[in-house]
């Protein structure tokens, strides 16, 4: 990716330190710690209650359910960044998809047609760019970024243009893109995959 020129949008988030691979790893570890901090107490309570008294088994099961549900809810929030927005009229959609198709290769076009996500390899990992956010796959971790084109027409950009906006910004300054975007979730790939719409799972599976 070109390193020439920082994203102009960085001026709107001047207080944020610029994203780097190391900073990304630290934020990932922080998410893992936060997940553990939610899960471990509930697991400990579940085991402790079960050992104390069989009569406490319902409470124990409720604690187990909490240990499962809380990370699942976070992952679900993360997975929503790939959601499709309401489509525009047929002709603008067709035109915008034509422009997007000119920006990517055949394999990316095909994956976008099937999943709504465009793969984009970068320095931080492999991105899957959608209309209102992007997934960043780094090994077994997926980071979910909420980011979109500001639209003076009130979210009436066609879907291809929404993706193209993010793709062009990402390509011009990947670390700036990750600085401007909001990190909605970072965690295990399987957690995010379970929460993705079925058709989008193929996009995650396509990234090794």
């Amino acid at each position: 990716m070109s390193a020439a020129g920082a994203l102009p949008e960085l001026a709107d988030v001047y207080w944020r330190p610029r994203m780097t691979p190391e900073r990304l790893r630290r934020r990932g570890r922080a998410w893992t710690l936060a997940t553990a901090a939610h899960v471990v107490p509930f697991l400990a309570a579940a085991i402790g209650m079960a050992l104390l008294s069989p009569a406490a088994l319902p409470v124990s099961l409720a604690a187990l359910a909490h240990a499962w549900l809380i990370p699942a809810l976070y992952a679900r929030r993360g997975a929503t960044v790939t959601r499709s927005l309401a489509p525009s009229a047929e002709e603008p959609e067709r035109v915008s998809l034509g422009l997007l198709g000119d920006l990517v290769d055949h394999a990316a076009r095909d994956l976008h047609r099937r999943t709504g996500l465009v793969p984009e390899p970068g320095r931080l990992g492999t991105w899957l760019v959608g209309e209102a956010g992007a997934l960043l796959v780094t090994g077994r971790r997926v980071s979910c970024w909420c980011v979109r084109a500001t639209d003076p027409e009130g979210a009436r950009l066609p879907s291809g243009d929404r993706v193209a906006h993010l793709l062009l910004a990402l390509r011009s300054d990947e670390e700036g893109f990750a600085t401007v975007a909001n990190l909605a979730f970072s965690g295990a790939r399987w957690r995010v995959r379970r929460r993705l719409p079925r058709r989008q799972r193929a996009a995650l599976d396509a990234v090794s």
Partner: protein
Amino acid sequence: MSRLIRMDGSGHTTLAEWTAEDPAAVEAALGAFRAELEQGSIAMVSRGPGHAEHVRELPLDEPLVIMRRPIAGG
């Protein structure tokens, strides 16, 4: 023939077309480019797969210049 386009609700709109041999078309393109910048648009040139560049002046020798809206965290 070079083109200046803006991504918008119609898919995209062609704002200007020019060749270096046509000064009037170049002037019109420069005017359209400046007007878009004043409205907050950002000019991009695609450099092939994986590469794009933010440009602050209209690159007259580029075949396609794309105006996009700013992005923001959701």
